[in-house]
């Protein structure tokens, strides 16, 4: 554990538990997440129902575990899509320069100009609420950010002399970009994508909270927060708080791990990470 902070270890444990819970929900969830039992509605956390029950008498722990599947799957899918498209755009834009770069950057400006929720509303309404639509909405809002970071990272590489040598050997643009620019510009991009996972989990919860995510009765963390906070928060706060805590822990853990990965990558590249901007010490 040398060199790894307690926070990072804790975050890793949380992520392992959440990912394990999501993967093996079928085996470890104590109840069917959709099974209703009105005689058990709004039970507080106890031995039988560790997280209590919701307004339909459904087990909150089981729904949290199944909800993790949705949240993590949507987050992964959206980061993969945004990462793939954003990196490709950013790298080619930095490498090609000129009019292509200008056009790509203006396109990204336009995408960036849409507030996240407006963009998400447009996409989800156009595709009708579903996990795929949610992932598409999140990916579309992450794409310009990833493209910017990728372009910035690539710009510092494309002027390197070894790329001149690569070109001199007759390598094509695609080969140059993806075999030589990407590995060099990769560390900050990878770190950014890791941090994006946390953002994506939070965004999925936001959309589900607004009723734009997974349709009921299927569980997702955001939907559970919505149902609990609007209908039962005073009577049964655990319906909201416990899934909320899991969501919060997951997002924070993803950010902590992403940050750690970023630092490691910077160190591996022999660079010094820029200092955080803040109030100077007295």
């Amino acid at each position: 554990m040398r060199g790894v902070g307690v926070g990072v270890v804790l975050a890793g444990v949380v992520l392992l538990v959440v990912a394990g819970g999501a993967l093996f929900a079928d085996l470890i969830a104590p109840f069917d997440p959709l099974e209703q039992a009105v005689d058990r509605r709004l039970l507080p956390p106890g031995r039988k129902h560790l997280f209590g029950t919701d307004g339909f008498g459904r087990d909150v722990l089981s729904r949290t575990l199944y909800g993790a599947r949705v949240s993590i799957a949507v987050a992964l899918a959206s980061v993969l899509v945004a990462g793939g498209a954003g990196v490709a755009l950013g790298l080619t834009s930095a490498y090609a320069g000129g009019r292509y770069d200008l056009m790509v950057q203006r396109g990204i400006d336009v995408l960036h100009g849409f507030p996240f929720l407006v963009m998400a509303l447009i996409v989800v309404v156009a595709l009708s609420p579903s996990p795929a639509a949610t992932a598409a909405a999140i990916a579309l809002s992450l794409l310009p950010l990833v493209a910017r970071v990728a372009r910035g990272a690539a710009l510092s590489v494309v002027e390197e002399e070894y790329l001149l040598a690569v070109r001199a050997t007759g390598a094509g643009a695609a080969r140059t970009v993806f075999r030589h620019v990407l590995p060099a510009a990769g560390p900050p991009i990878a770190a950014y994508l890791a941090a994006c996972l946390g953002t994506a989990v939070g965004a999925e919860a936001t959309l589900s909270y607004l009723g734009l995510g997974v349709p009921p009765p299927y569980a997702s963390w955001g939907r559970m927060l919505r149902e609990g906070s609007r209908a039962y928060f005073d009577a049964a706060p655990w319906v909201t708080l416990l899934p909320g805590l899991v969501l919060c822990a997951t997002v924070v853990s993803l950010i902590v791990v992403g940050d750690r990965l970023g630092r490691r990558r910077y160190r591996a590249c022999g660079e010094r990470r820029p200092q955080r901007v803040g109030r100077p010490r007295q």
Partner: protein
Amino acid sequence: MIVGMITGQSVAVEADAPAQLGATDQRTASGRPRGAARAASRRRADGRGPWGRSGPADKRGAFGRSSAPARSAGGRVATGRRDPGAGARGRGLWRGDKRLGASGPRIPVTVCSRVFAVLLFAGLLLVTDAVPAGAGTPRRGGTLTLANRADPPAGFDTMFTSSIALHHVGGALFGPGNLVKRSRDDFYTVAPYLALRWEHTPDFKEWTFVLRSDVYWHDGTRLTAADVKFWLDLVFFGVRSGQRVRPPAYFARELGDAVAVEIPDPRRVRITFSHRNAHFLQILANPRFKIAHPRHLMEPRIEAGDVMVSPLDVGLVGVGPFRIERYRRGSLVRVERFDRYFERDRYGNRLPHLNRIDYVTMPDPFAMDMAFRGGRLDGGARGQGHFLSSERVAAYERELGDAVFFARSDGGNFRLAFNVLNEGPWQDSRVRRAIALWIDKPAAIPAALGGFGWTTPSIGPGDIDVPTEFINWPRYDTAPLEIRRAEARRLMEEAGYGDGFTMGHLTRAIMPEGGEFLKAQLAGLGVDLELQIVDEGEWNRARVSLDYDSQQGRLTPSPIPEGTESVYGRYEENPDAYSKHDDRTLDALYRQLRDSVTMEQRIEVWRRLSRYLFYEQSYIVPVAESIDVVPYRADVRGLVVPPEDMHTHTDFATVWLER
């Protein structure tokens, strides 16, 4: 004045010229064998409550309903009934006699002044107790701020929508009725509104109304018989101008088969029907049938070819107690007192009491809760999703204590309805019956109705003397749930759907609980309910279409059996019918119901009709009757809460503020 009941001979009826509430509303003509008011008082007398449904607890299911006014989770819930002292307290609802918010001036802090202050304060208390702090005469003035569930749809046109988002606002603008209204003192009594008196021929085919002479539109134009004829013509016949067609109102068929509307003289309107229409008056007294169509403003537009001109297009000019002051689409409807409004209260004061009402559009119930609990609203919105659940009532009470009271009213019927015009297994009556048998109906009350409700196989017709044992569920299916479910499985096997099937299910986004409940229920029968969750705009479009297999919701039909044809009848007659079917047997049964004259006949036909509809064909599966709960601030006085149907008494004319 006469209401309701039918003697088989020509009857002339008359009310006092000034429409004073209370006095005129409750009197009935002598010699009437059975009337709604009499039935109501009889029901009260025999201890079954005003609407005759409070049977023994064991017949009312696990969540059986009683007529006690306070039955929420430890809460004070006002029903439409008043306590005996309500008159003395200014038509306020029963909610205890606690005084609120007495505050005195700031007292200087010295010994002498403390003594003086105590004496002064005691004196003030005595004075405020002696003189009406809201206890007696209603106060004039003030602004009532209410939440409204959505922007009123359909251009505020009451002929094309029964949306509560319109009618919550529409009562103030267009009044609580049309020619007649439901009495504020007894919901099941028909009272005069724009008509002073009426008469009918012995065969009930011709009804003549004599109009008041002191009714004005909000632009100052006097209401005439020609205006009423214009409205009735639009309702019954619609308009055709070249290729453009304005269809009749959605409730036209419910009112009967009118063949002509005439004006014998400037104050009379005569309606002639092709068949006997014995219960026309009670059907007409539906609060949804509001006159929102000024002839002098709309007729020129229609003649110019704009047949679909709406009340909004002509400036929302009505005859109600308030006139429009401001309308900001999607955010606010502000109405102000109309000084030429004709109604007076029981003390002879002109109505309305309030200066203004602000209806703030709040589609989100959570936002409404926050606004109310934060002191920004005087009353909640009416409508499913906005009606409070038991948990929300408890939260209001914890936070606001005595500063809030709850108006409670029997709400809509939560039901599953099939579109049998769409191809699928649900076209088989055995499948529909199996679904009806399978659902655990009492479980719907806590899961889907917020904890307030009761189970019923029927609409719970309010003013028909139906025996309690007929109304309360389960009556068709008295066997225990396990046995019913075994029968349901047998029926599914017999119909060839033992392995189940998938069925689309239209669900409103503002209240997905009903869909979630039914999906979980029917999963056990092998029916996979695919929820199509839609917003209000899409719901209003889809519910009148055939674009779904089944739907679920809580809609409120008329409180009398004759008034239910538009919701239980054929799709061809009303696209907004609960169930989409083309069963002409129901036409014949409704015809028989309309022809029935005695109460015994009505009951007999209604039993046959409801058995056919809910049991033999199971076009509609009534799950449970909801109880609607709306919060109001304790200083909102004079509110009239109907015992059922929150579309009624939305005019707020009698409301005043104790501030």
